[in-house]
């Protein structure tokens, strides 16, 4: 009897998990190992795969485009992480107050993050059009010289970072707002009774309590930097002069334009290694910082 009772839920559980597991094994587990296997092989479409050991990994370190892609990815992370950490925070502080028209302001600022990339990016190509784009028209009206925003090495990546801020801020605002709404009201009331100004309450209560959420957003944003593809593909194609070629874009070029699958797989494992290292470093640094005020 005891045995039967133990066995039956096992079979049911197995059947419940089975459909998902089929997809999980076929599209996650097998590709993961196959990708690792590929990264140790040299393989273009023309020839059979040849085992080359760590050659792909070694070679990549000397490829200028790869080095450039690493630097550009870090540059984008350096630009976008602070922007997407601070600006949505300030907007969330504003949207957390009650005022007339709040709902309208909230949807206006949050909703862009759901719009598909191609839509957003076609829009910004039009906004930034050197001749008739709205941005340069506004510059003209202000008496400032217009710019070829996306075709200058100095500005292209910065422009991509700001477009990304405009586009995805809403996502982080939602994350901040949900934390702000969870803050313990009685602590603020107690602080107010003790005569702490709202400025002081902000620095002493709000900010420390939001530190873990900030850590979380930083992590998300770093991972997002490594995924940066759509903006580069549609806005600049990696140019001008490779100044916006990111790792994700380089992987696409290597795998699906040059058809070097082994090397592309090695790029993806480098990405994984870099994300892991940055994630660990950042977790260590930030937990130290988090520990300070707590």
């Amino acid at each position: 009897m005891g045995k039967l009772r133990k066995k039956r839920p096992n079979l049911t559980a197995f059947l419940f998990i089975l459909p998902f597991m089929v997809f999980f094994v076929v599209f996650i587990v097998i590709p993961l190992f196959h990708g690792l296997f590929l990264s140790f092989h040299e393989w273009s479409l023309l020839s059979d795969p040849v085992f080359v050991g760590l050659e792909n990994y070694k070679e990549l370190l000397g490829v200028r485009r790869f080095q450039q892609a690493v630097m550009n990815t870090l540059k984008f992370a350096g630009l976008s992480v602070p922007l997407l950490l601070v600006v949505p925070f300030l907007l969330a502080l504003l949207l957390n107050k009650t005022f007339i028209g709040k709902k309208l302001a909230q949807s206006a600022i949050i909703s862009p993050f759901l719009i598909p990339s191609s839509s957003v990016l076609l829009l910004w190509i039009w906004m930034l059009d050197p001749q008739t784009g709205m941005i340069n028209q506004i510059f003209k009206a202000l008496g400032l010289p217009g710019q070829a925003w996306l075709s200058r090495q100095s500005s292209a990546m910065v422009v991509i970072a700001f477009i990304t801020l405009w586009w995805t801020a809403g996502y982080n605002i939602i994350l901040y707002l949900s934390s702000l709404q969870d803050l313990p009201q009685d602590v603020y009331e107690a602080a107010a009774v003790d005569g702490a100004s709202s400025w002081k309450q902000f620095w002493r209560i709000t900010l420390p309590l939001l530190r873990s959420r900030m850590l979380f957003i930083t992590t998300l944003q770093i991972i997002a930097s490594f995924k940066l593809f759509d903006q580069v593909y549609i806005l600049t194609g990696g140019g001008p002069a490779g100044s916006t070629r990111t790792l994700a874009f380089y992987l696409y070029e290597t795998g699906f334009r040059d058809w070097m699958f082994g090397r592309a797989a090695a790029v993806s494992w480098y990405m994984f290694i870099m994300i892991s290292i940055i994630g660990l470093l950042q977790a260590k640094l930030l937990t130290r910082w988090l520990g300070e005020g707590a």
Partner: protein
Amino acid sequence: MVGMNRRSRNAVLGIVGLVLGLIWFFPILWMFFSSLQPNSELLIYPPRIIPKVITFENFRTILFSTRGVNVCRSFFNSVFYASMVTLGVLVTATPAAYAFARMKFRGRDLLFWLIVSTLILPVQMFIVPVYLLLDQLGLLNTIWAIILPPIGPAFGVFLLRQFMLTIPDELENAAKIDGCSPLRFLVQVVVPLMRPPLASLAILTFLGIWNDLLWPMLVIADSKLLPLQPALARIRGEYHGTFEAGTIMAGAFVAAVPVLIIFNLASRYIVKAVSTSGISR
């Protein structure tokens, strides 16, 4: 703000909020207003923000002339793909999440955390091997190349399990005593209880597929099967960025509208999905 009374503070915040909201939303308004103007009107200086001449010519061109891409068809392809993936994710993730949350079997927690740990892997690691796998299966350039792979990731199982842990034991015990089978219990009791997280998961999945650009671009060559995002990306090559800006904006608007509508109808679920999970992006 110190010394201001509540009412005037409220008014100041309201103005700041609305001005910021307007500036933030302006590009989207401009996308819409550009799409309603004849292309030639968009070349003049100063630009007319509120259209003087309203025309639907741009929408007609982008939807029904098949210059390189068929936006109308791609729109319905996208609806179909996103719906199929959403259905697939819900049907596979729900029973699996239920088993991981409520059933006892050996190695359950280990298996669950192994599965969930794959969520931290960057999606780029799967692009090349899954592409080759589909090639081997002869599924490249078919609808299955878009529909099947996104059912693999463990996100849905993870999200639903968190919610299923909160189902009270009494409910399950009562069902068992009544002789209710696990499958019937799942369908008739758990699913109705899980409506909010299921809705969140459905919306996130649908939007994820609707917004995806890279994957369909790689696996679909046939323009008849192309979903909306890669079709729009091709518009850039087909239409002139400056002289046909209104037409391009009509295309961009067509892709943005469903999403904006979904957001306004279901913002509660979207906000909930984002704030409880956070890992979808």
